[in-house]
């Protein structure tokens, strides 16, 4: 398996990482995700890393990149379910993932995404939020 499935749900894209990422898989995910954002016009990306137990600086950078790339394509990124050990490792590596939002679990992540998207689009066009 050299691809991680990207699921589309309404205006969101869902990515659940169930296996430990190696570098090739991560770069593939990065390019696939950007492609998917542009193709579907998704407004939010949710990445679930609750099963990820090993992380290195490369992985941290990929996550950060995904966040920044989605941002300039007008989509918000939420990383959910990070393990305490992973969080500590990333901090010790000096990676604070400034470009992405974080949430404790998928439920809270979805709430956060909805809030972000709605608040950004409330004024210009009210129909946007209701087209699912």
């Amino acid at each position, binding site marked *: 398996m050299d691809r991680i499935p990207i699921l589309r749900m309404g205006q969101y894209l869902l990515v659940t990482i169930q296996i430990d990422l190696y570098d090739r898989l991560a770069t593939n995910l990065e390019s696939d995700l950007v492609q998917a954002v542009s193709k579907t016009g998704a407004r939010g990306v949710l990445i679930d890393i609750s099963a990820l137990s090993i992380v290195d600086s490369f992985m941290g950078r990929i996550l950060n990149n995904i966040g920044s790339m989605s941002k300039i394509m007008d989509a918000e990124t939420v*990383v*959910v*379910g*990070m*393990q*305490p050990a*992973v*969080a*500590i490792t*990333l*901090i*010790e590596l000096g990676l*604070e*993932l400034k470009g992405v939002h*974080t*949430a*404790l*679990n998928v439920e*809270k*992540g979805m709430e956060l995404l909805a809030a972000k998207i709605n608040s950004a689009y409330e004024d210009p066009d009210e129909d946007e939020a209701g087209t699912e």
Partner: protein
Amino acid sequence: MKTDISKLLQKNHKQILEDWMTNQLADASLREDLMSNEELGEQSQELLSALLKSINDKNLNDVQSEEFENVYEILSGISMSRARQGYTPRETGMFVLSLKQAIIGTLTKMLKNDPQALVDASFKMNNLLDSLSIMTFETFIKSREEVILRQTDEISEISTPVIRVWDGIVALPIIGTLDSSRTQVVMEALLQEIVESGSTIAILDISGVPAVDSLVAQHLIKTVAATRLMGAECIISGIRPEIAQTVVHLGIDLSNIVTKASLASALRHAFGILQLEVQKKQKDKTVR
């Protein structure tokens, strides 16, 4: 003619014990509050019997001899228990050294007519008992260090309690200096509790931290960043005026972190984020 010192000592077992006890009881550093005289007598009796049993003319010159193993064992047991009971090193040392006085005293009496043998015997007994007292000190200090080590562990354990103050709010009061190893413990405990309780807000109370320098501040910033990565928000509370002064003087930038002066205001801020409201109960006096 050669005198058998070990036989001589064994013959005078009772006399030595009596002298020893008199010496110990006469000493100013006797701790009757920690150990009764009977107990002390039993300990002395046990040690002396073991010593006199394992002594013979051959091993008298060789203090490392295996035959003294039993004596060493008993002595280290006594020394250890004394260290835990809170005896001072001097009091523990006197226990063995007063035995030396008793033994030399007895030898002097017995060998009055043979100065050469007396010098010889005293020299050997001195050597033996000196090595015993060195051993006593070693064990004493080792058990003291064990006590200190255990207390350090206990302190670091009890000093990181993560408290659930409300549904979705956890608080962690930090007491004592933050160093890197402690930050690690604090961070792990906090993140673990966030996962377990599903909390979205963590309050880090530093009113018990005596001083904040750039290193401590860096540790705090790290903890806050790790909490954010987990998807929770972190508030630092309990910033005392002195701490605010040092932080600003050191040029540490805490502007990206929510800071509050007291735990109460941090909690109020947390309630605001969770859109909770605390209200005073309305008493309806018209009913009955």
